[in-house]
């Protein structure tokens, strides 16, 4: 009897041990994420996809620190308009022209551009398959993606020159290594994408969607691409297509204080927001440039050369123009900066002069508007109409239309009440120099991807090519002595990228 029991018990146990090899036990569902199998099927998915593509403008990881401390400093610090705080490591060696290929800033810029490209590629591939949307809306969204892809390649080709041209979202981990394309091929793709985008993008969006890429933005960026390639007649034509469709803000400072975001002068902006109800889309700009005494971090200040140039920008009565006061905080009875108290007060320079470590500071973006907590949601301008007019003026001048060029320049100057330029005072070369080293830096100092890209294109170009070492030296960039012409005109291909993509060739000199 006992034996029987034992055997029974064993059988029972045995059945337990062996019955349960079922595969189901190891099949678990991901309850937190969607997969590609179910995505890209609704209109909402298309909107979410393009939103994510725009989000890469703020950095590949969505971090305000990546955006400012890595991407912004990388784009700005090499310029002759900037003096960086050398006790801060961000971009320090870039600014000093001593950086190696392992500098993090260029990598973050690179990664952010390609994040935008990768997402744009997904939208371009997938959205046409979403049949539940109207064809027009599908085309518009694909157009936006193409605009963003072109924008990112524009940054890449100007910053790094030799970059891989990736036009497909590759999912095979073994096929991710792509060699560099010729810069001309990248430029051609930029023009192609923008042309296709221009055809389908709307001229404007309803108020709730303002900030998305418009037809005008595509045209402006196309014009800029022509300008950078010195295709002067094409640039002139393209810019003229949007002349009159935008207008300058009557107050210069409204471009930087958040009061006319996506307004009449805005062609394309990187959007930020003080509204934190969904997620945190603020940036630290109002701290970065302020003096310590006004709660800032003084990461960078205007260069001596820029201030000298600014001070030449005067009214007929000799007083400084609006754009001088709107750009810099300096020793002048009328120079003021907002503090960060709640509510904020305007502080005259004289009130803090004794406590300042630097003689002058930037004033742009140093506004307490659209504050959410300590940070701000003020949009960062990428292309604004004043820039379009100055680019048009540059093209006109190269196309030997000096008088027309001066009209465009004066349109910009008059907004800031600057003394108007007189045609007779300038030769073509003088006007070119005026545009390059006065109008553009005084109007556009420290703005996104501005001055350094300008300098680099003039250093690369065939029209009145400038030796950058000479420019930087004459503009008293402190580190100009370290500048190597064949090397520092490009960022290094990031070492981190070369480490994982042996097909890449390092840029000359690094």
């Amino acid at each position: 009897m006992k034996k029987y029991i034992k055997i029974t018990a064993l059988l029972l146990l045995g059945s337990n041990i062996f019955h349960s090899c079922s595969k189901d036990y190891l099949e678990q569902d991901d309850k937190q994420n969607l997969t590609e199998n179910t995505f890209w099927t609704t209109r909402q998915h298309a909107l979410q996809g393009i939103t994510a593509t725009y989000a890469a403008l703020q950095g590949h990881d969505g971090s305000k620190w990546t955006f400012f401390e890595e991407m912004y400093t990388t784009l700005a610090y090499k310029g002759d308009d900037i003096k960086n705080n050398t006790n801060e490591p961000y971009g320090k060696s870039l600014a000093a022209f001593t950086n190696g290929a392992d500098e993090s800033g260029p990598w973050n810029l690179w990664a952010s551009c390609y994040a935008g490209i990768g997402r744009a590629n997904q939208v371009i591939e997938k959205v046409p398959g979403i049949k539940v949307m109207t064809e027009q809306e599908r085309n518009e969204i694909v157009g936006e993606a193409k605009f963003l892809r072109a924008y990112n390649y524009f940054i890449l080709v100007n910053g790094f020159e030799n970059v891989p041209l990736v036009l497909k979202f590759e999912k095979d981990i073994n096929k991710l290594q792509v060699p560099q394309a010729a810069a001309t091929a990248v430029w051609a793709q930029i023009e192609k994408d923008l042309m296709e985008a221009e055809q389908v993008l709307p001229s404007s969006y309803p108020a709730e969607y303002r900030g998305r890429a418009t037809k005008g933005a595509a045209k402006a960026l196309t014009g800029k691409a022509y300008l950078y390639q010195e295709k002067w007649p094409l640039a002139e034509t393209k810019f003229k297509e949007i002349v009159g469709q935008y207008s300058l803000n009557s107050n210069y400072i409204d471009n930087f204080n958040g009061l006319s975001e996506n307004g009449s002068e805005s062609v394309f902006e990187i959007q930020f927001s003080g509204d934190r109800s969904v997620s945190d889309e603020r940036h630290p700009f109002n701290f970065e440039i302020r003096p310590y005494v006004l709660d800032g971090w003084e990461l960078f200040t205007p260069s001596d050369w820029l201030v000298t140039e600014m001070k030449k920008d005067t009214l007929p009565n000799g007083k400084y123009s609006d754009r001088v006061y709107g750009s810099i905080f300096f020793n002048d009875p009328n120079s003021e900066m907002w503090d960060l108290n709640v509510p904020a007060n305007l502080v005259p320079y004289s009130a803090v002069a004794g406590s300042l470590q630097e003689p002058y500071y930037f004033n742009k973006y140093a506004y307490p508007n659209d504050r959410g907590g300590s940070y701000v949601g003020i949009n960062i301008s990428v292309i604004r109409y004043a820039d379009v007019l100055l680019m048009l003026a540059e093209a006109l001048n190269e196309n030997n239309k000096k008088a027309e060029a001066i009209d465009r320049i004066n349109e910009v100057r008059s907004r800031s009440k600057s003394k108007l330029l007189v045609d007779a005072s300038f030769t073509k070369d003088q006007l070119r120099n005026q545009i390059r080293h006065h109008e553009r830096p005084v109007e556009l100092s420290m703005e996104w991807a501005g001055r350094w890209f300008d300098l680099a294109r003039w250093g690369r170009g065939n029209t009145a090519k400038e030796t950058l070492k000479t420019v930087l030296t004459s503009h008293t960039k402190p580190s100009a002595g370290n500048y190597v012409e064949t090397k520092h005109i490009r960022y290094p291909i990031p070492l981190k990228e070369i480490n994982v993509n042996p097909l890449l060739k390092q840029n000359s000199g690094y």
Partner: protein
Amino acid sequence: MLKSKRMLKTKILLVLALFSFFTSSASPFQTDWKINGRVTDTENKPIANASVYVKNSKQGTTTDASGSFSINVPENNAAIVISSTGYKTLELTLHDNKSLSIQLERKEAVLDEVVVVGYGTQKKGDVTSAISSVNTKNLEKQPSANLGTLLQGQAAGVIVSAGSGDPAGNPVVLIRGLNSINNANPLYVVDGIPLGYAYDINPNDIEAISILKDASAATIYGSRAAGGVIIITTKKGKSGEPHINFNSYFSSHTLNNSIKLLDKVQMNKVVKEAFANDGGTPPVYVLDDNQYANTDWKNAYFKKGVEQKYDLDVSGASEKINYRLSLGHWEHSGTIINSGAKRDNLRLNTEIKLLNNRLKVIPILAYTRFNNKNFGDVTGDGNAGYSDIMNLYSTLPHKKIYDPASPNGYAKPETELGSGNPVGERMLSNSRTIDDHLQLNIAADLKLWKGLSYNFTIGKTIINNFDYSQTQAYDFGAQSLVENPSRFESRGRNEYSVYTHLLNYEKSFGDHNLKVLYGFSREKSVSQGTSAGGNHLSSPLIEALSGLIVDGTGDFIRAGGWNFTSTLQSFFGRLNYSFQDKYYLQGSIRRDGSSKFGPANRYGTFYSVSAGWAVHKEKFFKVPWINELKPRVSYGIVGNQNISNFQYLAKIYLNGADAYLNYPFGSLQSQQVFVGAIAASLANDNIKWEQTGTFNAGVNASFLKNKISFSFDYFVSNTTDMLAETPIPASSGITVLPLTNIADMQNKGWESSITYRHDSKKDFSFDITANLSHSVNKIIRLGYDEGVVADGYVDYNNRATTITKKGIALASFYLYQSAGIFKSQAEIDAYKNKNGDVLQPNAHPGDLKFLDTNGDGVIDDGDKVIMGNGLPKLDFGLTFNASYKSFDFSLFFNGKQGQKMYNGAQMFLNRFYRSENLLNSWTPANPDATMYRLSNADPNENLRVSDFYLEDASFIRLRNIQLGYSFPKKLFGNTSINRLRIYIGAYNLLTITKYTGLDPDLSNNGIFSRGVDRGYYPLSRSFVAGINLGL
């Protein structure tokens, strides 16, 4: 799944019922002799709690404190068995009815000791793998409530770093060094239940700890054993009357070490000099020494800590049931304001014998509650930044702490001093963790027939986490502004279930001994949680999320959550064979299936073989002073599956509250934010198990009548297909790095342990144990051909200090080489390359000279060189115990040799002009200074990552010193007290090190940044007084 579990339970109950039905009750005795006796050891000292029972019956008793017992013995069966732990069991046949005086001999051979191994036990003498048993007697003397801290220096090959001084934190435990770039943490197995941690355990409840170091021991845990296995068995009730133990200690903590900071006037001088050297304008606040406060922030931030621990347990056993109920309370007030931790433990271990002792049922219930005040130490790799403590160290002495006029009592700094008040911020923000851990196990062990037994274990671990933080509004300047009181909460629920079936078969025939184990187990882990919070509570008095409001666009109320499940299904077996107790052979195999891998690579098979030879039992072996000599060798493979779930799926990322994919649109200033979603990672359904193959050769020996015991192990392990985030070209647009089987690594080393026991018959006895271990690792393959991981950043995204690549050790320091200080401009001008270019044109006298190590004529990245790493070359522990009459004394030293530390904290303090070292900076008048010149602009980049900040962090530390006194028993007379010991001691009393930073033993869980000092909650030194009371 649910269904099958329910079925299983039913079947077990059925089996139990059947067995109990057929069990007959014992037959009654006839005539009884009443036997009285006293049990002593060979020195005539009474042995209490020795078990005395009638042979072949259930009749038994235990001895009292004087060793006496009395028992009724049937005349027709007059044999008794006397046993006690640590003594040889004695069997006596009785011939008449009289008083007995019984002496028990101590077990001489440690070989008979039992070692806990995976899913069972083994006699120590039979072990063929590298297993360390931790001497829990030594643990009892250490006044610590944390298992990891206790393991420090206690077993050869187990390297424990203090982690941080935060009482709420945990140390970093590594077995045989770093053997994976993924997760090198060991697996903990508590009473048969595999867990990722064991910090909820009260050390007072631990009976035994076994550390499985080589693959042959660990294979039985297969896929999670690559980091080694720590097996913990908790205490059960021992035979005899109920005992009550009460243990308690109290200790007073003060900071072990503290960096010396400049005061205001010194700092003013230093800053002025730094700016003067650059020709710049110094900040206005350094100009007037008589202005501003001169605050000692450390004094307000650090405090004396008090640690207390109370343990009470009741245990007992009868023949059919034993039990132990224990309660523990521990608390530590921390040495930083508003920090500290508390823990409460409850454990009930029971063992019930049924069916004529054929069935043992072992229910275990354990509950732990943690109450922690959180502190922001840095954890992990990457841009981990600096610890909160560095904010404190870098705060200007010019700032005031308190301001009676401020609504919260803390001062807002003058604007020119910048924002922040670290004391105010710490006090006005409460971050708390309240965690409940509940562990329920039931094991049933059934002897089937003839050496065959079956064991079933079901375990459930439920962890409920609750975190919250509530911050009051404060304004310490624009960068330290909290406009409204805020509150965030997070609640998580982890439910982990495991059930295991084991079949054991044990058989001896002739000279052959055979032991076979077969097992099947299933584990499931379900993790769900909710987080929510907002930045505007309508009143600071409300401490609930219901008080959140949205008043304006800056306010938000957000919610988040998680929900995932993973499963593991395993088959395993082990075979032990020995011949003549001289030749041993063991083989193990385990096959694991894990839901973490895609269908194609779900299963992994792990195996091991080992052999041992008891040379001392051979007839030809005639060395009388060698009692044991047993070489052994093993090889085996274990795995690692410690990755997050669903890496094989093509995910679309959508996370509403994360800025990552979201973007605002609209015409307003505070525009509406739209939620984005897109694929940002790669699906990789090729990922498979990471495997570690280990070869181990070792020897166990004992000499001089077992007074000296010795073991040595040499090992080589090769970890292949290590799973880690793989750097891929950013040009792919992928921003979430995929996990792949990226790398191979080799780990080599040895460890040795030696114990000497002096057990004289006189009043004085002592023992001394030394452990020593060494390991080095090397990367064999990393991703693509020239794959490189840079980490150990000492600045946000910049100044990486470590590098990991093929051919070098994991996380090797990769730094510029400095060569002293330029003493003159002539020296700088003379420092040229072949072409005659000055190598450091931006240098000034007083700046660091860097070497052009690759000789290419420029000083750039190519000149960085590999300079060691943060793992010790040697790790050792030395324990000394002595007793003289009623006194006992113990000493415990622990040390590490050959580990490097990058003193990032020092670099940080120099950069912010706070370190006292700066007073001795180079100036023309101080030409022999070792600290480079002061400069704010730092044109020479003295702050670049160089060996200037790399230090030797070797140390020897007197971890524990203790003197105890046990009161003689006669003092207690007829009271129920049978043991009373009091002790005093000191913990972390003395450290010998050249390291100049906070502590040479602080570390975090980062693998790629090990050895980078970013400032941690400092360690403390404590003085302890305690009591052990037994009733």
